[in-house]
């Protein structure tokens, strides 16, 4: 459909269809948006997904629990550490394995560093879509520091397989802790710079204020979670509502805004980065010494027969793992509930009535990652 097809609608308006994607600089991966346009206004939007379907859930039914571990971080490669650790924690909860203190603290530090790196990438690509090309490189420069820190202990830069059932793979040394502390000091100043360069920029505010407002009914009907929900004023965070790991011991705020437009979502994510820094600093202060792997981990992972659910707060929202176990060491069914799937299903309702240029801003601000939609 790339010729000018003029469709005569009922009221004799000249409307046309346009495809954004699957190859498009702004759709953040292979997403196809079929837009029905009247001039510059969108009458109808249909996201067409599935271009990146890799059958993770089918793979889960054919591998045992330990063999599936590397898959988890590929589901959402930007929050790979959080997803990987979530899967480990899900099995630990089902088998009631107790994780040593030091491993819990390391998990917190690694998870929050991952959250910051995911938000930095979001910031860079969001600005890139809006036309400001420079912040993209600044964000990636900062992200390199995080990736180097995590690389030094896990061996991977993007798709981590750091967690194991009962703890983490390797212990962190003093260099890791010093580097993380140095990064925290450095990043506080960078956040101030980003506020001035990006959030304070008049053109950025013009492009994002009042654009893409999620009505609270839409958020409720489609189970929107994460920064998109917090921008509406609802302080929902899985780390506070259903604490996992040792998150109860940490003192951090859940940032919210009021209107729920693109600007509010940006503010929420910037503030979340600050809160993540606070969590990391507290963890660095309190991390005890000790083992990083539980003493007694069963050799064969066999959760008792039944169903289990485990949810974490990833960088995008509520990530849920639903496991149906039949008592064997291969999962009978594993369903990965990913936040971007819910968020992108709201697009037909949110995009109607907006303009073409706003589509790019809205898609960028809800921060979707296509691999986790398609799994």
């Amino acid at each position, binding site marked *: 459909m790339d010729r000018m097809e003029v469709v005569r609608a009922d009221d004799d308006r000249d409307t046309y269809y346009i495809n954004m994607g699957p190859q498009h600089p702004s759709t953040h991966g292979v997403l196809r948006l079929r837009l029905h346009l009247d001039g510059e206004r969108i009458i109808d939007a249909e996201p067409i997904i599935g271009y990146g379907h890799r059958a993770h859930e089918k793979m889960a039914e054919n591998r045992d629990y330990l063999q599936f571990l590397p898959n988890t971080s590929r589901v959402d490669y930007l929050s790979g550490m959080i997803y990987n650790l979530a899967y480990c924690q*899900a099995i630990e909860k089902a088998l009631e394995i107790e994780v040593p203190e030091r491993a819990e603290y390391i998990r917190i530090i690694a998870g929050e560093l991952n959250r910051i790196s995911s938000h930095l990438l979001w910031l860079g690509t969001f600005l890139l879509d809006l036309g400001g090309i420079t912040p993209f490189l600044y964000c990636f420069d900062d992200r390199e520091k995080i990736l180097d820190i995590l690389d030094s202990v896990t061996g991977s830069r993007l798709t981590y397989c750091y967690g194991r059932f009962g703890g983490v793979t390797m212990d962190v040394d003093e260099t890791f802790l010093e580097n993380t502390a140095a990064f925290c000091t450095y990043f506080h100043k960078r956040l101030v710079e980003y506020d001035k360069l990006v959030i304070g920029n008049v053109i950025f505010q013009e492009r994002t204020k009042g654009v893409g407002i999620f009505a609270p009914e839409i958020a409720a009907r489609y189970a929107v979670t994460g920064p998109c929900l917090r921008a509406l004023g609802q302080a929902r965070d899985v780390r506070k509502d259903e604490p996992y790991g040792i998150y109860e011991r940490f003192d951090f705020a859940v940032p919210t805004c009021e209107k729920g437009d693109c600007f509010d979502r940006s503010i929420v994510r910037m503030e979340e980065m600050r809160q993540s820094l606070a969590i990391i600093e507290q963890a660095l202060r309190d991390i005890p010494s000790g083992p990083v792997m539980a003493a007694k981990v069963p050799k064969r992972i066999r959760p008792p027969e039944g169903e289990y659910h485990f949810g974490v707060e990833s960088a995008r929202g509520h990530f849920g793992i639903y496991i149906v176990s039949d008592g064997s060491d291969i999962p009978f069914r594993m369903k990965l509930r990913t936040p971007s799937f819910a968020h992108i299903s709201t697009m037909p309702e949110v995009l109607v009535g907006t303009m073409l240029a706003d589509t790019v801003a809205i898609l960028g601000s809800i921060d979707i990652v296509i691999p986790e939609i398609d799994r």
Partner: protein
Amino acid sequence: MIEEKLNELDPAIVSTAENYAVKGYCYLHKLEVARLPEAAALFCEDGFQLEMMTCVDCRESDGIFRLVYQFNIYDIAQRHLLHVDLAPDQAAPSIAAVCPGANWYEREVYDMYGVEFSGHPDLKRILMNDDYVGHPLLKDFVDTAPQVI
């Protein structure tokens, strides 16, 4: 509480409390297919959100498809699981009218398992391509697509 309302709706609904610390959810309800739209409406009116919906292929052990609906209310973090058992060729009623978030989840179940949802506004494949033959997540699925190297 929602369990009482469900009980009022149909005493045949079996609700069991679960160990939240291990299982991750508070209640498990087993429903008849016919009761599904009303039960879903009950949850949605009460402020619950459909967090996830999926299907489990239990044809080998029990001869049924089990639809699993997961509702959660964030204020008090109470997660409820609904089990709806379907015979292999039976169609389930769609709750997309009551709960728009279910629209895509039902399309995914149709795509992966072949379960039809009557009353769904636009039941077509979502993850696989439109002319794909087969339903990948079935336990006896054999991939017959030509291998393109």
